[in-house]
């Protein structure tokens, strides 16, 4: 229900309940709290990073209902009830790195690591719908995230290697 415009205030806190990496989490946040900030500071999931807060760099990319979005362009209140995947959800139950993560390590697909969570999630989503992506699919899927360290070369190699490792993995 919408609050009464006359009696409500911007300082009102909203209870936001989300399922993050399969775990139900909640926080009481003002309406203007960005999803990126709620994940990082209210839920202490600091793997999602903030690089620009205007939707260009993609360091804040998370999966919302399985689809990549910019969490810095989303208010937490707008995704109440949603299922979110962050980089913390990519490892196995024992903390063993998943195939995408292993591929990035093998291929030196990260240097400072700040942009990396976004690229890992984009790669994960890409491979879930296209297990053997062609080059133009890789460019389309990853071509909107910035990296300042790697020059992207090893990121692309990592994606191809991740596809191989994912295929090797027993489903």
């Amino acid at each position, binding site marked *: *229900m*919408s*609050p009464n*415009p006359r009696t*409500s*205030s*911007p*300082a*009102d806190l*909203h209870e936001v309940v989300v399922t993050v990496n399969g775990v139900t989490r909640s926080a009481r946040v*003002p*309406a*203007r709290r*960005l999803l990126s*900030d709620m994940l990082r500071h209210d839920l202490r999931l600091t793997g999602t990073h903030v690089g620009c*807060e*205007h*939707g260009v760099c*993609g360091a804040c*990319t998370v999966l*919302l*209902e*399985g*689809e*990549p*979005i*910019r969490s*810095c*362009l*989303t*208010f937490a*209140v*707008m*995704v*109440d*009830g*949603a299922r979110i995947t962050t980089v913390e959800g990519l490892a196995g139950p024992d903390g063993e790195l998943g195939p995408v993560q292993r591929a990035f390590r093998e291929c030196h697909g990260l240097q400072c690591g700040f942009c990396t969570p976004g690229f890992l999630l*984009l790669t994960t989503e890409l491979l879930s719908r296209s297990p053997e992506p062609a080059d133009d699919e890789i*460019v*389309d*899927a990853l*071509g*909107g*995230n910035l990296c300042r360290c790697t020059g992207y070369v090893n990121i692309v190699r990592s994606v191809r290697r991740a596809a191989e490792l994912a295929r090797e993995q027993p489903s």
Partner: protein
Amino acid sequence: MKPPPFVYHRPASVEEATRLLAELRDEAKIVAGGQSLVPLLNFRLAAPAHLVDINGITGLDRLGWADGAVEVGATVRHSRLLREREVAAAHPLLVEATGWIAHPVIRNRGTVCGSLAHADPAAELPAVLALLDGGVEAVSWRGGSQASRRVPAAELFAGPLQTTLEVDELVVAAYFPTLAAGTGWAVEELARRHGDYALAGIVLTVTVDGEGKPTSGRAAYLSCAPTPVVVDIGPALGGGGGGAGSATVYDLVASSLDPTDDIHATAVYRRHLAATLTVRALDRALSRARTGTQPPQPELAAVSDAMAAPTAASSDGGAER
């Protein structure tokens, strides 16, 4: 860059939304995808006291056909247009133009109607709407009841980021007329980086007769004016079109546009680029026209209605609460 404070509303119906807007008027901004609005808030270039989130309103996610036009409801995301192949078959121009918008991540949240209401002259969809003589349906709560009006594209865009919509109006749907048989189309843009706003861009249609001779053509331009500019290129097509008429097409377009300088390009360059892209776009559009475009089949319309219902896999951000 944190956004300024606001009161958040999530109406469950169109009536609730319009009653809110009638009360809040210019203190409120509507948010659907947020991909254009939230950066403005984060930069504190806008500071609305109230935000009205329409994602919770059922019935705004319709994607279908009616009366020779593709109808797109207010909460339909760009990515859905790209995903549903029947739409591509029915309106390939609309789908290709949508594919030029930013990056997939932005398209997963941004909405078609939101893009139109935002009215960025560098955006693709306002130009497509203008080219096709489409329009939007805007509703409001006036005098104790729901009011509704159709705003044609030619009357919608008032200036950069400005429409003629009233402060209490909510766009609930947009209509993109489909192309007639024998009409080809093309989209051409040149951007600095993949996914950027274009330095200049064009969406173009051209119609040919039974022998493949162009009989009419229209082009709408992005990033060339405060609003989308539509140019009738018909007069330049007389001499058989394509190669022979290219210089005339170039000159006609160049003389019809009056872009401005900005940090990314000069006016002179933009004018030249728009005219150059027109020549290239015309070539492609003509070959499409000559191989024939298919109008939407009646049975597809039935399928699209079923597709219009929200599914669990859709990213409509919690349409079902």
